[in-house]
């Protein structure tokens, strides 16, 4: 378990999450009360209400729970996907599946997380595990 939370005690979990992400580290919370992992980060566990939460580095592996191809004119950048990914730890997050054609992503696909930088912003994206 990391002790990042102490080092960043001057801020709330949301700022902590994004500052770690901006340094290339994807972290999620694990409840020390019930053991559940949660995403997005909060000041309490949404499963049991406990406030003792540890930051952990997830394995990064997960499964596409659902996906939609959002249609956009080619001149605006073309179609892109929006996916919901279930991490192997049990938490779910919205993301984008990269490293494969946007329209080929299917529910059930095994994926691996990476931190991508888009301009000023760092964000978690996933690529297919087979390609890794």
């Amino acid at each position, binding site marked *: 378990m990391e002790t990042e939370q102490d080092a960043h005690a001057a801020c709330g979990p949301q700022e902590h999450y994004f500052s770690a992400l901006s340094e290339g580290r994807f972290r999620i919370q694990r409840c020390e009360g019930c053991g559940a992992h949660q995403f997005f980060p909060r000041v309490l566990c949404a499963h049991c209400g406990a406030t003792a939460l540890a930051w952990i580095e997830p394995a990064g592996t997960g499964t596409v729970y*659902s*996906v939609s*191809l*959002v249609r956009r004119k080619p001149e605006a950048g073309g179609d892109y996907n929006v996916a*919901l990914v279930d991490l192997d730890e049990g938490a779910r*997050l*919205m993301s984008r599946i990269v490293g494969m054609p946007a329209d080929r992503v299917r*529910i*059930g696909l095994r994926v691996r997380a990476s931190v991508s930088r888009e301009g000023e912003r760092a*964000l978690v994206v996933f690529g297919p595990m087979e390609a890794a």
Partner: protein
Amino acid sequence: MMSLDMLRGKVAIAGVGHAGLGEAPGYTEMEVLAQAALRAVADAGLSMRDIDGLATCSSSATMWSMPVAEYLGLRPRYIEATMLGGSSFVAHLLPSVMALVSGQCNAVLVCYGSTQRTAAFGRKEGVKARSLLDPQPFEHPYSPLQPVTSYALAAARHMHQYGTTRDQLAEVAVAARAWARLNPEAAMRDPLSIDDVLRSRPVSDPLTVRDCCLVSDGGGAYVMVRADRARHLKQAPVYVLGNATAVWNRQISSMDDLTVTAAAESGKRALAMAGLEIRDVDVAELYDAFTINTLLFLEDLGFCRKGEGGAFVEGGGIAPGGRLPVNTNGGGLSCVHPGMYGIFLIIEAVRQLRAQAGDRQVRGAEIALVHGNGGTLSSQSTAVLGSAATC
């Protein structure tokens, strides 16, 4: 202590009205709201001076009940401004029932107006402003086209998990259109086939533009009074038999199971308050912001089992002449959808229960189930309404 079932039928909807359906160029939101309110009050045989309770909310103005009271010249003793998105005007029923039964007030006006289609600051600008005022930092960076992408994710999951087909989703839009063709007030009355839905412009797969509700202007209102008073007013009373609201999440990424909505809870509680079973329902008005909604709510409310919504609507199952009349005004898909549609569900149910629905009248309709949805499958409010014969 009282229990909720003691409130069954104690309050009735005495008047309904709408204004500016479709397009209301040159009018403000407040003006279409006020026109709808005037019609609802007149429909009840009351005057605005009789109104001493107000329930309203807006997608943009956070303190909306104050300008509404000011504009209409009301000094309400009861104010309800809970904002749950499209389900709000269904969810306003129960607190209003309590306010009326307790004697806090004597006549509640529930009202809404929107000019999101024609106003300079319309739907698009509203979405942009909300992303700043009400940020979702764990979803927005991935540019979901909201709200449609959230519903598309639910549709994709339902198809994957239960084998629901694209054609079955299209059936929902086709049935809505068939009802709209019987409703002179509906915006979209041209014939619509399953192929038309499938071949229309894709927006966020698997949903096409014909799987999505209209972007309309419009105002709607209804008036509630205690049942004993309603029996002496102009229209046959429509009794509030049950109402319940449930919220489990706001963001689609926080929803445990995209194939099960909080309607599973709100429906059970509303029916329990009404002392009725789902098979007692004669007509259903289910918030069809997108075609997947109707399937999810048919299942979650218990009209069919989980996963069987697609089969339920097949072959015109919810169209005129089908097994269950659903969205008899043409719904948000083909009648009207001014941002928050919930109030129009109530208006249509009231007309059906008063046998004032013209060519689309469901014969012998005594019990209506109204189900409102808000956000991105986020808030769910179910109401059971009964005709004059039920109390």
